[in-house]
């Protein structure tokens, strides 16, 4: 029995997974691609534990994969389970939970390499935790307030003596008035904030860090792949996600102490992949804004030539160990 298959869990259309699969295929690595959204209508799942670890199979519309053959799992963007429409809403909730813990639990229990294990991704997405882990790893972060009290925000800004920004803690996209809306990082004046609105939930307020440029650093299995991002627009300089057309990318190197800090960060979180965002100050200091454990990177591979597919293939096959 050859335990050498990389299981790629992602949706049907995922060009990011495509380039990794191409790299793995070029190396002769067996790859099995499945979408959990095929379960249970187009995928069958069986697993058994006979005292020596989980075994079983995924039988999708295009392939059947023996779990015993899986040496690594690339957990990208699987779609959600799709249940028969005849299920009632209540039974769909029940079926969802049974599938999440049954299918997901067996996969999570497999003794194999993960990029990234979804349990670790979920934990690593919590920004307050990111800030504290960054501190312990020697990565500077902006001074931060999380509060539902607007007066606290006012006093926080006064203590800093400079501008502050507000950003969302989660990645929920609002659906309102027939449109989708996202919350980018915005400079705000706390004295103008409605206390009622601010008190509706907690808010993340951070000091505005003066920036010469920003950097996106993709770390994969210890390999550090950095690109500097410059923007020609005011909006892009506050949050580069808000104005992609204004951006220019330059391959760069992270300072050694920052690179080491990111490796420690991933070790602390149990991740083998992380997309770090940094501000580079006019003095050249690197300030970490966040680490996205499931960040996108394909455009950086295309534009800046970062060898991320090869780094992922190294990690998935154990070549990076």
């Amino acid at each position, binding site marked *: 029995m050859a335990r050498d298959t990389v299981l790629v869990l992602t*949706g049907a*259309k995922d*060009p*990011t997974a495509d380039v990794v699969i191409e790299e793995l295929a070029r190396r002769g690595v067996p790859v099995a691609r499945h979408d*959990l959204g095929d379960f249970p209508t187009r995928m069958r799942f069986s697993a058994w534990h006979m005292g020596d670890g989980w075994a079983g199979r995924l039988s999708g519309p295009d392939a059947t994969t023996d779990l015993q053959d899986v040496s690594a799992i690339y957990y990208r*963007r*699987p*779609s*959600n*389970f799709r249940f028969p429409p005849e299920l009632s*809403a209540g039974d769909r*909730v029940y079926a*969802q*939970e049974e*599938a*999440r813990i049954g*299918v*997901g639990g067996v996969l*999570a229990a497999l003794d194999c390499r993960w990029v990234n294990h*979804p349990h670790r*991704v*979920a*934990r690593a997405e919590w920004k307050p935790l990111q800030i504290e882990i960054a501190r312990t790893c020697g990565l500077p972060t902006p001074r931060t307030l999380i509060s539902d009290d607007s007066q606290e925000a006012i006093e926080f800004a006064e203590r800093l003596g400079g501008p502050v920004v507000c*950003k*969302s803690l989660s*990645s*929920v*996209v*609002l*659906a*309102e*008035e*027939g449109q*989708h*809306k*996202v*919350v*980018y990082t*915005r400079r*705000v004046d706390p004295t103008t*904030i*409605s206390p009622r*609105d*601010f008190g*509706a*939930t907690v*808010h*993340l307020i951070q000091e505005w860090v003066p920036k010469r440029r920003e950097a996106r650093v993709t770390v994969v299995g210890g390999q550090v792949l950095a690109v500097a991002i410059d923007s020609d627009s005011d909006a892009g300089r506050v949050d580069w*996600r*808000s*104005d*992609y*057309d204004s951006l220019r990318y330059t391959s760069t190197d992270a300072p050694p102490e920052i690179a080491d800090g990111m490796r420690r960060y991933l070790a602390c979180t149990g991740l083998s992949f992380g*997309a770090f*965002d940094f501000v580079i100050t006019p003095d050249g200091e690197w300030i970490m804004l966040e680490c996205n454990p499931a960040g*996108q990177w*394909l*455009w950086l591979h*295309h*534009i800046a030539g970062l060898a991320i597919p090869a780094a992922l293939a190294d990690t998935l096959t154990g070549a990076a160990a």
Partner: protein
Amino acid sequence: VPDPLMPSAALLPLCDSPGGGRFALHHEPGSVRPYSATLGVVPVRLGKHDTTATKWDEQKTTETSADGQEDPDTVTIRHTDT
């Protein structure tokens, strides 16, 4: 839930509903809303950065039960990341 295996909401402490929490997303904002939500803007065209996997729509069933009567509804939620 956007992720089949580990919906982030499932990590919330004291979450008492199956599936990891209940979201009350509405198309029409109320008179009071989270301040950060008021900063939301329609995203710019992503152009060459827009890969298929960066966003997907989810039809999410919502339920309100202010008076004990459950009122099912459906909203479209778009998930993205960076």
